[in-house]
């Protein structure tokens, strides 16, 4: 699982390079903005806003967050959309963004125990 698949963006993105030619990029490789929010006793990510490839799965993102937060192997991570449902681990973030994104980003809440069932 390579970390260079996503790039942290804490401030509005500067145009450091020319905008990519959309037609040449596979839809799954296009990136969407994800905002990660901690719930309960879950540690807060230093970098909260990430540009993530649409084709990335919730499981893959969850593993990334766990590694970033240096969680123990035994500690589980639960991810929620709209503070209401936990998407399937194989669900792609691009689809979640299309259906539940707002202000051009997908907000995901994460916690170490079940929060919203």
């Amino acid at each position, binding site marked *: 699982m390579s970390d260079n698949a996503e790039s942290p963006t804490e401030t509005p993105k500067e145009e450091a390079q020319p905008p990519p030619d959309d037609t040449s990029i596979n839809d799954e490789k296009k990136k969407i903005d994800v905002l990660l929010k901690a719930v309960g006793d879950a540690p807060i990510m230093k970098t909260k806003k990430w540009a993530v490839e649409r084709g990335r799965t919730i499981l893959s993102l969850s593993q990334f967050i766990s590694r970033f937060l240096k969680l123990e192997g035994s500690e589980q991570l639960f991810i929620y*959309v*709209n503070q*209401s*449902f936990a998407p*399937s*681990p194989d669900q*792609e973030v691009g689809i979640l963004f299309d259906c539940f994104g707002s202000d051009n980003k997908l907000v995901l809440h994460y916690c170490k125990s079940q929060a919203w*069932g």
Partner: protein
Amino acid sequence: MADDKDVLRDVWFGRIPTCFLLNQDEVTEREAEPYYLLLPRVSYLTLVTDKVKKHFHKVIRTEDAEEMWFEYEGTPLKWHYPIGVLFDLHASNTVLPWSITVHFKNFPDRDLLHCPSHSVIEAHFMSSIKEADALKHKSQVVNDMQKKDHKQLWMGLQNDKFDQFWAMNRKLMEYPTEDGGFRFIPFRIYQTMSDRPFIQKQYRPVSPEGNVHTLGDLMKAMYPVALSNEGEPKRFQVVIHGIEPLLETPLQWLSEHLSHPDNFLHICVIPVPSD
């Protein structure tokens, strides 16, 4: 003339005759007989196959047996997809019974989620219902329900109790009359011809101008390849619960009557069989 409510029953009680065969590579103490079962279209493989596991555990060395998983013609079957969707996608237009191969070794982690207990299925099912309601009602209806109401939805599915399930599910099918339908329709379009999982986007049942959207409108917006142009031979079937509803059917009606218990319309696009 059939009542709309009869459609709900027909959907709920849909069954697929299935033959479970043990994978030839499994080491057995004696010959493994196939096991026949009528699978509910609207349920999940790991919820209804405890008897299959028990049957094959009698002939294999149980010390060696790992988590049971299923495969059809080389394709691992995702237990978290409704059974009817798996059948329509992979095995419709083939001779019944549906022949599924059972495995107890080499679990394909890349293709399948693990299912260690029924509570995992319950969590997945309830999450799907919540996701559907997030689209239909901004989660207002499902959040207004009590924990025991949620439990009733699950128990209804688990125990095949149509009345118990629908006593609660009817609330999730309501909408303000002035809106003409749900906010967005929960749907997933599966295609055999691509390795992309499924198409799911925001789509309204009624246009801002007041036009009622049909199944055809949805397919045109989401996957126009599935529709054939005038004069051209039909290449694809748009299948829900094993049938091809008329493309003129209002999407709102389909959502209320042909959704799975998880409140999603699962639509399969499959190539027209060549005889």
